[in-house]
């Protein structure tokens, strides 16, 4: 079938502002938006620019705004969208070119929550022990592939770019609730800041957008609750 693919394009070297470009692309129903983008790039217009790598939803390169929602282009099929498909860069981040947005700030926020295990106790000869229950406590948030679909779907983030955003909170959660970690307090302090968890207004766009099915809002609220608990 033929798909009417509209792409919000912008090349700072040529265009003064973004514009919608339309492409007619042949597609099978099982094909994904990424396939269509490739077809355009390889056959029609090589200047069309987007990121991608794994092509099966595990690397987080190709999150974009597809038919009004953030999704991975490699994980959404044409038959789930219909014949008219619109693709735009992730909302709320500066556009570098076409569908490519500047991720530096996103990763800086990720790093700001100190996303690494801190445990200064002398190392045992073997592995540290952790019960399956303790392991399960933070399982959900270990799935994150840092695709930014969540943060850029959040109205709080659109309003305030200083908001640390759901992705960073998810990655803080992964350590705060890891029984082996010792720096939970510190991360909670960071997230108790004015740009931390309190900016979340339980909008759930993040949870709806997450291609890994992480219950992000739950993670955020668990962090909020942990902060409140420690203070009261």
């Amino acid at each position, binding site marked *: 079938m033929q798909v009417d693919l509209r792409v919000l394009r912008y*090349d*700072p*070297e*040529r265009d003064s502002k973004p514009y919608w470009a339309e492409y007619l692309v042949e597609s099978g*129903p*099982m094909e*994904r938006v990424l396939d269509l983008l490739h077809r355009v*790039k*390889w*056959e029609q*217009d*090589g*200047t069309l*620019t*987007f*990121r*991608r*790598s*794994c*092509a*099966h*939803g*595990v*690397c*987080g*390169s190709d999150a974009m705004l597809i038919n009004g929602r953030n999704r991975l282009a490699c*994980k959404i*099929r044409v*038959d789930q969208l219909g014949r008219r498909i619109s693709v735009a860069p992730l909302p709320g981040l500066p556009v*570098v*070119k*076409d569908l490519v947005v500047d*991720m530096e700030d996103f*990763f800086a926020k990720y*790093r700001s929550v*100190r*996303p*690494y*295990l*801190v*445990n200064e106790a002398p*190392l045992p000869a*073997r*592995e*540290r*022990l*952790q*019960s*399956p229950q303790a*392991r399960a406590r*933070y*399982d959900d948030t*270990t*799935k994150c*592939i*840092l695709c930014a679909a969540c943060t850029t779907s959040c109205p709080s983030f659109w309003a305030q770019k200083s908001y640390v955003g759901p992705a960073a909170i998810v990655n803080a959660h992964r*350590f705060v609730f*890891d029984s*082996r*970690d010792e720096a939970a307090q510190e991360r909670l302090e960071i997230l108790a800041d004015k740009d931390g968890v309190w900016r979340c207004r339980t909008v759930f766009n993040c949870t709806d957008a997450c291609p890994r099915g992480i219950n992000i809002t739950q993670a955020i609220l668990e962090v909020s609750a942990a902060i409140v608990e420690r203070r009261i």
Partner: protein
Amino acid sequence: MMVSRGATRSPVIHEFEAVIVGAGGAGLWAALELARAGVRTAVLTKLYPTRSHTGAAQGGVCAALGNLEEDHWEWHMFDTVKGGDYLVDQDGAEVLAQEAIERVIELEQMGLPFNRTPDGRIDQRRFGGHTRNFGEGPVRRSCFAADRTGHMILQTLYQQCIKHEVTFFDEYHVVDLLVDDGLTGGVVAYRIADGELHVFRAAAVLLATGGNGRMFRVTSNAHTLTGDGMALAYRRGIPLQDMEFYQFHPTGIVGLGILLSEAARGEGGYLLNDQGERFMERYAPRLMELAPRDLVSRAIYMETRAGRGIGGQDFVYLDVRHLGREVIEAKLPDITDFARIYQGVEPLTQPVPIQPTAHYAMGGVPTDIEARVVVDDRGTVLPGLHAAGEAACVSVHGANRLGTNSLVDLLVFGRRAGRSMAEYCRSAAAPELVANAHEPVRAELDALRTRGVGENPNHIRAELAAAMMDDCGVFRTGDGLRRLVPRIRELKERYERARVQDAGSIFNTDLLEAHELGYLLDCAEATVASALAREESRGAHFREDHPERDDGDWLKHTLAYRAEGGPRLAYKPVTITRFEPKPRTY
């Protein structure tokens, strides 16, 4: 047309002690070692580190921890050697099996969330080819974090790098390796964001750029796995070793090549042809679907060639319906997910169409067990240059890699690379840069986007991938390979005249994809030449015209050197310490 902005400008120069190209499992662990040793290191990656393909690995990472049943590293070593059809260098395999244990424990201590046994230790499960007591029966050796072990390894290592304040250059595409007078000098990188060239001067360089699966039409590999590190070395006169050994995984999603893990067959899934037969009984009556990867892939190919593919096409069915909803949903969630999303097939009620998919390069840049690049058959080291991960060939995988052993390889030899580089940097400094070291590659890049007219490189890539799939895939014949040699030469010539459409400087992926095609062509050239010469069948390399293994003539590694008019081949002996070659039966 627009001319590159940088055409007359001098590049940005960075001074480091060590440079790591690639931030997958191998590159990140090396970076960590260097950071711990206090060596000033730059990590260059064309993707954000967390997007490296290490994150796609699902199965697990084997280490003889013996957490659930008796296990010994010697057993692991034996399985590795036998799995590799005895082409494995056994000093490497010994290091691999021994150090796997320490590395997995260290990963746990870095925070990797392994699944746990009820008493809190790292959980382990069975995996193809890993056995108890030198082949007696399956053993629980694979350590795992749900079905995303690779993802967790990549995340954990990146997290530790953040903790140790490693300097990353994200989205810097390395386009040249600087080697001068037999010394390593650094690399040239193209900054994707603005198209500027950056020269990184360093005494030690690590190539950890991963595989080259994109040579093939159907592959489990990411679009970005284009053999960059291998080709960079090859272009500098360094040989590529054992390139003819390329693993095809039996169960990839049709057309897309996305991997459906071995677990499906491990749990008892069937492979069916068009007539509904479990055709594996013709090829491996005893092990059926659980025969080794190379064998199963060949069987599938035989069926489709004989016209017994589904609807006469080039795929067969993987059928798990008889396992029942509970087993499928509890144990094969990834498979069900992928099948649903990418094929619209419901594995609970429908068989899943699959076909072999190009998966893993056993070959690569030859190194010793310290991950130092060796340039000949006498173990001569190129000072400062290192390689690790899928881009390297130690060779611990020989002619056929065992499941999970690639992740082990990353950990063990990634770390060794870091140590060896730190050691090297203590005594050596980077040589002076030759003037305009970046000029050749700049000219190359500029030509791709400024020459008047030229062919669309994407057509060349498609043709290459199709040709490689047809004539250098699971089955090979002398005739097919001989056909392929001039074909690739022709594609290379066409590539010399190709032109991309995007002439801009900012985020020009059109240009970079074309440049990657150049890497793929080099890898393909070496692969085909090596495969054509090797007149035997061993592991993943199956020659229909020479179907037997021939230890008399061919128990040796291939080295392919770049040369005018096609690669020059040389050979080097296999290191055998403990296990003498035996027929490989399972």
